[in-house]
């Protein structure tokens, strides 16, 4: 009896200590989401189906597929696979395209402000009824400004 009692007592003691430790060390996901987001290209293009890179990083922590990011390409998939070994892949290959930046044909811009509303990274400057222009250094090439433009004056080109 005494041997079983001793071992049980030991187990209960260890469990109690661990339960206390668990309270103290409640893990937050914030830092992990940040670490994953820093592996994403931050184009904010929403091609992954989430409204930006941080939302996708949050979804990744929740178990989303790791190969939904075309701007990042296979390199990003590799990195994510290292950090999230249990997340699935959605498909075998990932189509990637070369980096592009947007340019507004300033002569045709009517100053409608729609592209500025659409730009996720504040890379377009201008005011309503005045000409807009793209800050090339800030543009991530997400192409989200193309559909709203009523006069199709935005073109994508090599940086």
């Amino acid at each position, binding site marked *: 009896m*005494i041997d079983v009692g*001793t071992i049980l007592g*030991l187990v209960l003691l260890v469990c109690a200590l661990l339960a206390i430790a668990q309270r103290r060390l409640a*893990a937050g996901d914030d830092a992990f989401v940040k670490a994953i987001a820093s592996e994403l290209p931050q184009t904010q293009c929403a091609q992954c189906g989430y409204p930006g890179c941080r939302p996708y990083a949050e979804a990744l922590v929740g178990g989303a597929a790791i190969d939904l990011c075309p701007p990042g390409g296979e390199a990003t998939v590799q990195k994510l696979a290292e950090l999230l070994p249990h997340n699935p892949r959605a498909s075998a290959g990932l189509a990637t395209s070369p980096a592009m930046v947007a340019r507004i044909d300033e002569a045709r811009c009517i100053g409608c402000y729609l592209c500025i509303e659409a730009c996720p990274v504040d890379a377009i400057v201008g005011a309503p009824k005045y000409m807009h222009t793209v800050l090339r250094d800030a543009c991530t090439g997400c192409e989200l400004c193309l559909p709203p433009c009523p006069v199709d004056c935005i073109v994508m080109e090599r940086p």
Partner: protein
Amino acid sequence: MAELAAALVGSLLVNNFVLAQFLGLCPFFGTTQRYDTALAMGLATTFVLCLAATLCHMVYHLLLVPLGLEYLNIIAFIVIVAGAVQLTEMYVKATSRVLYQLLGIYLPLITTNCAVLGVALLATGKALSFIETLVFAAGAAGGFTLVMVMFSAMREQLVTRDLPQAMRGTPITLVSAGILALGVMGFQGL
């Protein structure tokens, strides 16, 4: 004092747990692809080893021996080791999720790292005093970390070498580990 120093050097180099006694080989091969994970693994194992060895020593001498239950030592030690590993895992997960992911399955596997249980069993078997147990554990843990770090540095270099196809990956890793163990054998005369 001199005896303690000799014991430290003995468990650190001469009887190095990984390369002379061949204990704890699975993290040695599993987590040494990268220097930073190897160092983290070494430190995590160091923590578990020292904590478990001292706790095991106390439980053995303060609980099991008075009650005449020495034959339960393995079960009792495993409970303590598992508890220490669980604590380490919680801590690593809370402080660095990235590191937690990189160490992956090898972190909970410290539980079955034979070096950890080995130190506890050897220390009680040799009837070492508390201080001696601590020094023995510190030496073993230091030796483990040292070898992990050394080997990861070697493996990072190996990746860049132009090796014959058949030797790439695991084969060259095993061969280099063997050569490293040969080197450590040189300390036997110390």
